[in-house]
């Protein structure tokens, strides 16, 4: 849940990038980090294995600017996508304000995509959240690869509820900011309602 601090006039929101192993979650954050002005970002922390697979989480704090006199900060986290890190994924979902589900467009990763999405719903539910009530967007990543499944098909399988979705190539940065902006916007609109 967001943290509103009237004393320091700050608002903090937590965004979690979820998706199967190697779908490009960490790459999304790396691109955001690389393209954000120094004064608007903190250090990016990656708790990773020696082979650069996420072990616990990546963390990137962004301070984007002010809304109505409140400094608006977004804390971006990725989960480890590998199936056996489920306990860690659950921990990272705690206090989430918005979710980016990153799918791997490659045909051979379709099953992994579906499994990860089920896992997301299940882990949220376990903590009393409902994915359909959270600010939530979908990203179809790795559009550059020749074995990418057509978007309509991905949409049918992975976005039945028709939330905002985006095509991306995180390694070149295409679609990365569009995705982030969309979820940030949904979170702020949610805040506006005062929940």
């Amino acid at each position: 849940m967001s943290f509103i601090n009237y004393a320091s006039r700050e608002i903090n929101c937590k965004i979690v990038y979820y998706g199967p192993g190697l779908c490009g979650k960490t790459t999304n954050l790396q691109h955001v980090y690389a393209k954000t002005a120094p004064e608007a970002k903190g250090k990016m922390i990656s708790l990773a294995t020696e082979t650069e697979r996420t072990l616990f989480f990546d963390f990137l704090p962004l301070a984007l600017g002010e809304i109505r006199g409140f400094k608006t900060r977004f804390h971006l986290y990725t989960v480890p996508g590998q199936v056996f890190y489920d306990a860690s994924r659950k921990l990272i979902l705690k206090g989430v304000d918005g979710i980016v589900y990153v799918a791997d467009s490659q045909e051979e990763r379709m099953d992994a995509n579906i499994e990860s999405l089920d896992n997301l719903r299940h882990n949220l539910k376990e903590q009393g959240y409902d994915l359909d009530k959270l600010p939530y967007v979908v990203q179809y990543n790795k559009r550059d690869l020749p074995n990418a499944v057509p978007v309509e098909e991905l949409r049918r399988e992975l976005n039945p509820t028709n939330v905002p979705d985006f095509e991306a190539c995180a390694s070149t940065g295409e679609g990365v900011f569009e995705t982030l902006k969309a979820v940030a916007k949904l979170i702020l609109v949610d805040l506006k309602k005062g929940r």
Partner: protein
Amino acid sequence: MSNSQMVMYDEEFQEINVVIERLLKDSNSKVIFLVDKNGQLISGVGETERFDTTSLASLTAGNIAATGGLAKLIGEKEFSILFHEGEKDNLHISIVGGRVILVVLFDNRSSLGLVRLRVKKASEELSVIFEKLMKKSDEKVKSGTSFPFAEITDDDIDNLFS
């Protein structure tokens, strides 16, 4: 309880800072942080400028979350105190009132015994303040007190990303 929105007001912020300033002095420590369990920094006193406080907050919360997971696995509720001993500096991490993390960094000018003793007293005071804070924010939500984001426009949001 712990799923409600975290809000901080001036009055409680001052009260909290008085308590942790005193703890800093009484325990002879170098720096003290209060962190929300979700990894957001609430306040810090002492030599805070020497540290990347945002990273520290997120890693502390990750640490507490991971050891909390371990505790559950072995049938404990949670480990309410963690202690990390370094060559020069040590970290004493404890949970206050179930949802806030108190981090005390100290060196050999203090001792674990002293820190533990002072933290205990300060925790009780902090619990009371956070309890009050939660009640207050729940009441404000219920009474529909004007919320600063009620009037944000699409333009405000778009401007953030320009």
